[in-house]
């Protein structure tokens, strides 16, 4: 459905020197700098998949989305969606897609919400019967009824987002792009929106690409994730894969009955570990050991611990996805990793 090959986007940026003098200087003689926002990204998305697009701020997520939706023209590389090239013949292409930018709205700010839908109905040439059916469906999943006659400027952010998503789906697009659809929403509304996205995806096998900073979105919705950082793709695969690839961190926590015995535990020597592989914290009551499960198995850790000391309580926790991604963002993994 979506093919992206070696996509690249460069921006020209005027470099300003600080201060008034710098401003005047760059007014007459602007210095340009070329910034590569997206550097050689390739991936492909089959029909009906929900793809999560994640990465830290400024990684180039939105730029990719803008190229895929035909707003920006790539500097080089190819993207093809449903057999069409977005930036060529834009008017024809955008009939097939729906787009929501979480930070912007496509609704008419000063008009009743209903008016926006009437305008969209004509723009996309949706016939009356189809329109009725579609509105009924969208109403059901997004619950628009209670505010459809209110002016858009009076809607809450959650209502507005639901209305925006509905607006992008009125013409039953084959692909739906969601750029941070849950930004700034509370937990309940987020959950509603996630359920709606799922329902929409199932209903017509709509392919969904979404960018987000909320990893709950990713865990609940996405079949697959593509992670980018500094314009490069750093990961592409399922969530299980992400966890097994990067999620070697395990945390062992226990409350020893005999603290002296516990202090004689020497994991580093026992398993030949370096400082990078293990972190031990002892607050005088609970001992927590974070270790790399690639270097030493959970089983060995447990049996060694229990052979030295008796415990009142012990548990081993899986690294959660949030931790993994935080680690990746911070350390800035190389693309080959």
């Amino acid at each position, binding site marked *: 459905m979506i093919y992206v090959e070696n996509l690249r986007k460069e*921006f020209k940026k005027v470099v300003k020197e600080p201060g008034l003098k710098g401003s005047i200087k760059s007014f007459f003689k602007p210095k340009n700098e070329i910034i590569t926002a997206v550097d050689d990204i390739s991936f492909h998305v089959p029909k009906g998949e929900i793809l999560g697009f994640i990465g830290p701020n400024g990684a180039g997520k939105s730029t990719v989305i803008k190229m895929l939706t035909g707003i920006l*023209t790539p500097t080089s590389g190819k993207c093809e969606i449903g057999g069409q090239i977005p930036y060529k013949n*834009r008017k024809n292409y955008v009939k097939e897609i729906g787009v929501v930018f979480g930070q*912007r709205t496509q609704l008419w700010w*000063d008009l009743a919400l209903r*008016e926006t839908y009437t305008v969209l109905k004509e723009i996309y040439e949706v016939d009356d019967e189809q329109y009725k059916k579609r509105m009924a469906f969208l109403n059901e999943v997004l619950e628009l009824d209670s505010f459809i006659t209110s002016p858009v400027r009076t809607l809450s952010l959650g209502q507005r987002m639901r209305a925006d998503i509905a607006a992008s789906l009125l013409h039953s697009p084959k692909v739906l792009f969601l750029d941070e659809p849950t930004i700034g929403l509370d937990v309940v509304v987020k959950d509603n929106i996630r359920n709606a996205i799922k329902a929409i995806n199932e209903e017509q096998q709509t392919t969904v690409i979404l960018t987000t900073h909320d990893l709950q979105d990713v865990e609940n919705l996405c079949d697959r994730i593509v992670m980018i950082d500094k314009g490069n793709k750093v990961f592409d695969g399922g969530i299980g894969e992400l966890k097994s690839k990067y999620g070697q961190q395990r945390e062992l926590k226990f409350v020893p009955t005999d603290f002296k015995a516990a202090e004689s535990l020497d994991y580093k020597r026992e398993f030949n570990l370096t400082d990078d592989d293990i972190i031990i914290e002892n607050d005088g009551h609970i001992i927590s050991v974070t270790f790399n499960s690639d270097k030493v198995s959970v089983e060995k850790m447990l049996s060694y611990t229990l052979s030295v000391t008796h415990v009142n309580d012990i548990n081993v926790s899986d690294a959660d996805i949030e931790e993994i991604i935080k680690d990746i963002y911070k350390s800035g993994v190389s693309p080959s990793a």
Partner: protein
Amino acid sequence: MRKILRIYKPFTHAGFLLAAQYRVNFIFFVFGDIIRCFISYFLWHAVFTSGGNNTFMGFSEVDMTVYIFISFLTGIVAYSDGSYIVGEEIRDGNIAMRLIKPIRFDLAFLFQELGERTVTAMIIFVPMMAGVEIYKFVVTGAVGFNIWCFLLYLVSLILSYLINFYFNVCYGYSAFVLKNLWGSNLLKECIVNFLSGGIVPLAFMPAGLGFVLNLLPFASLTYIPVMIYLGMYDVPTILMSLGLQVFWLVFFIFLQRIIWNACVRRMSVQGG
């Protein structure tokens, strides 16, 4: 053509609703301008009284008064927000939301603004026209209303609006380069107002300058329609002037398209 109308008609409807919502705002806006008109009127009144002549460069005092008010009316009805709206959408990046719709950017704006203009015209056109004609009747004692001049004026007025719209949209695209248009917009309005005869009739200009200004697109915005309304033009001049208006309209439509195509390829959307 019919398809275009069907797709863009809702924009007109939306523009209509928008203008109706902000009508109080609009009335204040117009009220300020009407005061300016009266200042202009008293200024010219003083000129005619002190000069002792009945006519000044071919304009009688009545002509001048009608000129002031009709050029004001023309300016209001043919006003276009194009440069401001286009510039603003480019500045804040909301232009992206237009690009994801299967519509032509210029037509969507045009039809929306037509809706707004209709409301404006409904509020102001009839009372102003009636006021001017009543004034003419009271001062000259004869009915000076010429239906042909009026109808030709309407045609010229519509052309004037369309030229103004496309000119402003072209201008608004400079936001792709300048990023913020507020200051240059003020400058533009000032210059255009002067060059289009909104302040002083172009007939008052020195011959050479007047000739050039008559050919420039700005004359098409205010001066031509008003002169037609005043009945100052004979038939050949009217035809030539309307032809000139059509020429400038076509020119700006094409210019707009060229600039747009060039810009869209090099666009960067501001703000996330």
